[in-house]
């Protein structure tokens, strides 16, 4: 076991650092949260720079235009990106992390030719249409209907929690193609261009007060049958093939952000006066900083274990779920500590007094995105209990 970089990893880290240094300096100012065209252009510009430099699709296989980097190199790239304050994947998230890998694994040659390059260059943005108002944790109960009519599927229904729908060109969709089959059977995976008639995008306002995601209302949208990925009624399996793409780096970006927030909070506690000394001098608060620091270090070690396992060819059952629950718990606890440090400064969503107070309130609220999104903490606990510990199913 080692924590040191190997010689080739150290060389890769050096190259990435050099490149990031120049590339980040060339970036324009980040657009406002609600400026979707601006955000789209900003993220596409960054992705274009990555593409030209050969860092786009860093973990994608090289025969599909990716870099084919090892999981460890991927981790190094993300670490160095955070260190250089480079933009995160932003609007490219669904395309690069999910839709692209799915098309690589299950798409036709025509689908690969049409979509993969656009995802890598940043020209195409994707969103995800999986969850429905009645199908959240029980995703396989989804009811958005697609029936075959000639060379098209005619799709009607409603999708929810569709991040970046306002800026996306394509949507990866799960639809029910066989209404007589329940649950996992009878679902298909479709590529839906977002400019088709019959799609109504209605932004949903989050607890942050911003519109990161949307509802999709689909009224007889005609999606070409050529856009079916995998076999008809085999969409559940298709949606899960990306799990085999996961090499332990899924939450590295979030963990880097959290570590950075933690350091900001330490600086704030040390510079904030209270009761004649500083917030940092409060023994109870400092103890909590210590516990959280230990948890963050543990989560980094956990990540490195998962990446090391990923490098050996696959994740251990439950390690992703376990990481996510532990990370969500830490994120909530960090948010609670932030509110204690901020005291009444937490009443403002905007930064006060030149300090990142608003960012810290934002981070507290963001903890719910971690404990709810991508399978709630309770669903992850069920997965661990049943698939790792082998406890019997409830029904």
């Amino acid at each position, binding site marked *: 076991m*080692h924590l040191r970089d*190997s010689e080739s990893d150290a060389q890769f880290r050096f190259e990435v650092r050099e490149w990031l240094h120049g590339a980040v300096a060339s970036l324009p100012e980040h657009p406002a949260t609600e400026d979707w065209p601006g955000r789209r252009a900003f993220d596409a510009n960054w992705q274009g720079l990555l593409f030209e430099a050969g860092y786009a699709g860093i973990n994608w296989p090289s025969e599909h235009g990716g870099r084919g980097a090892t999981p460890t190199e991927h981790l190094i790239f993300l670490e160095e990106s955070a260190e250089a304050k480079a933009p995160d994947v932003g609007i490219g998230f669904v395309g690069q992390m999910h839709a692209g890998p799915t098309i690589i694994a299950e798409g036709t040659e025509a689908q690969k030719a049409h979509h993969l390059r656009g995802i890598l260059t940043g020209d195409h943005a994707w969103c995800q249409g999986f969850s429905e108002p009645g199908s959240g944790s029980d995703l396989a109960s989804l009811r958005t209907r697609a029936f075959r009519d000639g060379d098209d599927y005619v799709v009607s229904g409603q999708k929810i929690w569709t991040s970046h729908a306002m800026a996306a060109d394509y949507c990866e969709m799960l639809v029910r193609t066989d209404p007589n089959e329940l649950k996992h059977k009878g679902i298909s995976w479709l590529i839906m261009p977002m400019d088709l008639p019959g799609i109504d995008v209605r932004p949903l306002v989050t607890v942050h007060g911003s519109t990161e995601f949307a509802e999709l209302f689909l009224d007889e949208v005609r999606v070409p049958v050529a856009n079916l990925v995998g076999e008809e009624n085999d969409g559940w399996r298709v949606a899960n093939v990306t799990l085999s793409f996961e090499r332990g780096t899924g939450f590295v970006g979030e963990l880097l952000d959290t570590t950075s927030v933690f350091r900001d909070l330490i600086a704030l506690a040390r510079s904030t006066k209270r009761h004649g000394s500083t917030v940092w001098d409060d023994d109870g608060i400092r103890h909590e900083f210590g516990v959280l620091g230990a948890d963050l270090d543990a989560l980094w070690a956990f990540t490195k274990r998962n990446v090391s396992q990923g490098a*050996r060819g696959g994740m251990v059952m439950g390690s992703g779920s376990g990481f996510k629950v532990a990370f969500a718990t830490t994120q909530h606890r960090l948010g609670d500590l932030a509110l204690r440090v901020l005291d009444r400064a937490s009443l403002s969503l905007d930064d006060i007094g030149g300090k990142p107070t608003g960012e810290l309130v934002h981070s507290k609220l963001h903890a719910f995105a971690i404990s709810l999104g991508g399978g709630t903490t309770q669903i992850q606990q069920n997965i661990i209990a049943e698939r790792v510990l082998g406890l019997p199913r409830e029904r």
Partner: protein
Amino acid sequence: MDLQPTDDQLALIEMVTGFASDRFPIDIVRSFGEPNGFDRDRWKELAALGTFGLALPETEGGVGLDFIDAVLVHEALGKALLPGPLLAATLSAGLVDGVLDGSVLPAIVDIPHDGPIIVEHFRSSDVLLMVDDDGVRVAPSDIAEGIDVVRSTDPTSPISILETVPAGELIGGPELAVAWRQRGSLLASAQLSGNSIGSTELAVAYAKEREQFGRPIGSFQGLKHLLADSWIRSEVARSSVWAAGVMVDEPDVGSVTRAVAGARLTSSRAATENAKTCLQVHGGMGFTWEVDAHLFLKRAWVLETVFGTCDEAAEDVANLYAGL
């Protein structure tokens, strides 16, 4: 970077785990806590595996592996609740004759500034190792005076209370004391991490077998979530314990002090909380002496006091993060 055990390390863990279940099943562990229950022959078998000299150079009679290997082995020992002065023996094997092969039994105490001097396994020991800021001293156990034998909270960690410690002979200066405290703390944390895994396995086995309302209690979400949380705490703990173990071998990659302190926090939490969950999952049976759940909990309480407390560890981590 590679933070998963190698094939050799997996084989080592399997060997120790197999030995523990063959030669130290739980009734033997319990018997070590009885008056005169310490079985020296069995202890020598443990020593003969190379347990105490894993990270010692071969020229000193050791196995010549890295410190992380000792950490992995102590995790396996903690999981099996192996009794006896495991930390004292591992720390002193290269310096005190007879410890390496198990013929001399050490006890160790980090002498407190205030309060009673409480020493685990003193009553069966041949030598007493004494750590303070000035260094490490050793004395024959039979010259210690003013010994009060009390009932120990953990039945498998018998304790003695010494009124004073003997002067003893200096075997190392302040640097050795620092090294022993750091390594001793991390090996205790490794045992805590293993302890948390052991109590979780015990609880899971019971939850699959025990039926109420016509089905196994492990099918109820209320218990599933408790047990999933136990598993997660163990995974978090062993992550920081392993990372800290590697950092002792590769001190240039980060703050070893912070890593060791962090490992103490996560492993103490995992061991105490998982043992509590184990006791709770066993229902009324968990409240009995007969069920092993309390042995995990009480051993965890012993280990989390060894070479530093959680409160001290939290203070260390906070200050090191703040650059203080």
